[in-house]
């Protein structure tokens, strides 16, 4: 509060319409008399943590903070899925004179797409963190919320596509197909199979979190 005193004159008061004339006259008086006068009277955003500010943006701020936390939570599984698929490489101890039995993610185009999509989504989540932080500080920017909603939705759709294509291949690797005469390769390649199955699960978790982020953004837009 003491640092608020020289700043009292220069900081514009951008909290709401009805309060502005009252607070502009109250501010020099507060600065002169008691600099420790409660933040509830003169709502300057200098040193109050965002969740204690008593303005009516509180609900939107809580939602924006939840959005920020969920973005960080979604980044983990996406990155883990990408790394775990990218490092899946299994060579069997059996080999013939000419051929060595080996399975890698780039033998299956679906896994390649899966890896690329997870990497893109992980990168996008990191890059959208500053925008989400801006929304916590200024919850009234609707355009930014709309942009984040659309981008989240596109990323969620792409990730769902990649995860389900990889899931189809993983299901085929586990069970094979009698009609098409496709052998279940998981019988031999255990480690490869486990790794790719685990990363598909992590990727679906990211999809769920991204969908929740879309719903959250829609709720915040409606609430403003």
């Amino acid at each position: 509060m003491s640092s608020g005193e020289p700043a009292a004159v220069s900081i514009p008061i951008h909290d709401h319409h009805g309060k502005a004339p009252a607070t502009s006259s109250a501010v020099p008086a507060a600065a002169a008399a008691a600099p420790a006068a409660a933040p509830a009277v003169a709502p300057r955003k200098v040193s109050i943590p965002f969740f204690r500010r008593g303005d009516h943006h509180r609900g939107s701020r809580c939602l924006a903070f939840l959005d920020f936390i969920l973005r960080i939570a979604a980044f983990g599984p996406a990155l883990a899925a990408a790394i775990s698929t990218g490092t899946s490489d299994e060579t069997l101890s059996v080999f013939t004179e000419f051929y060595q039995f080996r399975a890698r993610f780039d033998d299956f185009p679906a896994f390649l797409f899966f890896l690329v999509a997870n990497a893109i989504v992980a990168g996008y989540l990191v890059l959208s963190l500053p925008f989400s932080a801006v929304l916590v500080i200024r919850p009234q920017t609707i355009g930014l919320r709309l942009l984040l909603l659309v981008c989240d939705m596109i990323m969620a759709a792409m990730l769902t596509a990649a995860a389900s294509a990889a899931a189809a291949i993983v299901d085929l690797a586990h069970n094979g197909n009698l009609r098409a005469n496709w052998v279940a390769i998981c019988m031999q390649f255990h480690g490869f199979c486990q790794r790719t199955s685990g990363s598909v699960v992590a990727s679906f978790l990211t999809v769920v979190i991204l969908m929740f982020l879309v719903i959250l953004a829609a709720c915040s837009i409606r609430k403003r």
Partner: protein
Amino acid sequence: MEGSEEQGETSKAPLSRGVSKGVSILDVILRFVAIIGTLASAIAMGTTNQTLPFFTQFIRFKAQYSDLPTLTFFVVANSIVCAYLILSLPLSIVHVIRSRAKYSRLILIFFDAAMLALVTAGASAAAAIVYLAHKGNARANWLAICQQFDSFCERISGSLIGSFAAMVVLVLLIFLSAIALARR
């Protein structure tokens, strides 16, 4: 705050109402397009049945969508999304008439997002299997079955188109609903 909002609205009222109505009408039209897309895909995939002219003493070479569980999931997912879109059409028409509804648009966005996930999952899993049927996989020793079952293969490849188109349309629908929420 209510005073300034009202003032803002009456100052641009006719144009704003026109744009809201336009958005709602576009929503209805896109829903029709998505219904047609998913219905066509489900029917095209569901009626696949090809029997090869040669057979051994014990086996008859036959291909149907139900031989591959992923394609079964594709048919089921498209049917569910088609049913949902038909059921949500009345709600969408109500939005054209009375565009002040607050909660119904949010519910519509929620279910549209869920259906988007479902149709995307079905379409891309089927796409992975169709790709495998066309190209096979040398490493896993999976043969390309399209060499023999060409009519079956063509049918399953073509039915993916309607489903992917419906996916794009659902993305647009969610975007439209979000714009309508933001403009309210």
